[in-house]
């Protein structure tokens, strides 16, 4: 259901657990679907011994995709006009991520209504892994 400008106010939040105990298999699925086969996401031996990380970690774009699921569930399908993020910490197998959107502004422009959101996705330790902003077209 698309959001309605009349019912929204600054500070409203929407929150979803977007992945519970992230699996290495999901990283393989993301590599296959996106085409990004960088071995740091699927190849533990390479990642430990050559790249110098404790093990494989998620594609930034997977964290953004998971956060995007919360976003489209909240604003409705086909309503996003802007979506941007910074990747602030790596995401590891076993992580549980909670994505949150907070209403920053409700406004109208040329007769159309929009909501501006700030976004933050955190892991099970409360550490932010993704921060960002989004704008969606909403109903009056």
């Amino acid at each position, binding site marked *: 259901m698309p959001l309605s400008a009349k019912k929204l106010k600054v500070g409203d939040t929407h929150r979803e657990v977007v992945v519970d105990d992230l699996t290495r298999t999901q990283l393989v699925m993301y590599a296959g679907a996106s085409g990004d*086969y960088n071995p740091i996401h699927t190849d533990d031996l390479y990642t430990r011994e*050559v790249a110098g990380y404790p093990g494989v970690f998620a594609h930034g774009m997977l964290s953004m995709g998971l956060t995007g699921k919360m976003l489209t569930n909240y604003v409705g*399908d086909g309503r996003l006009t802007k*979506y941007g*993020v910074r*990747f602030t910490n*790596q995401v590891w197998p076993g992580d549980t991520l909670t994505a949150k959107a907070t209403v920053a502004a409700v406004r109208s422009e040329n007769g159309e209504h929009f909501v501006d959101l700030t976004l933050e996705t955190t892991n099970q330790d409360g550490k932010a892994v993704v921060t960002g902003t989004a704008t969606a077209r909403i109903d009056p």
Partner: protein
Amino acid sequence: MSDDIEFPVEATHIMMFARAVGDDNPIYRDAGYAAKTECGGIIAPPTFPRAVSQFDPEYAMRLKPGQKWFGSGKNPTGLDGPAPTSGGLHAEQHFEYHRQLRPGDMLTVTTTVGRTWEKESQRAGKLMFTERVQEYRDQKGELVITSRAIGVKTERPVKQS
């Protein structure tokens, strides 16, 4: 600057991409359901545009027949020297949607390399940032998506706090 990429948007690819981000929304796979929604048909998830990598013939993160690969086989890496991408991470990603992508779209994607800059960091040493802007135009030549990605090369692996 690099060559334009032709990116055909296909229903099966959208379904696989939605599965990969754990999104079970039927708008990404069920044409009958999607036809009855405001969207009027299947659309692509918001981060799908970056799957353009599948169609970039030069893409460095894809194993290519007959070429050495930097991932492990017999040895931890198949290369003698460092990987071409070593230390590379994605720092930021921004999309602007002028309309939603749909199966059947034939996109032409133009890439422009933008600014580069450096920063010192406690966790990973010297950071070298590069901005890359991609414009996605449809079969009618209309701009449908603008993507701005910031990549970072770290001097050393990011220290885990």
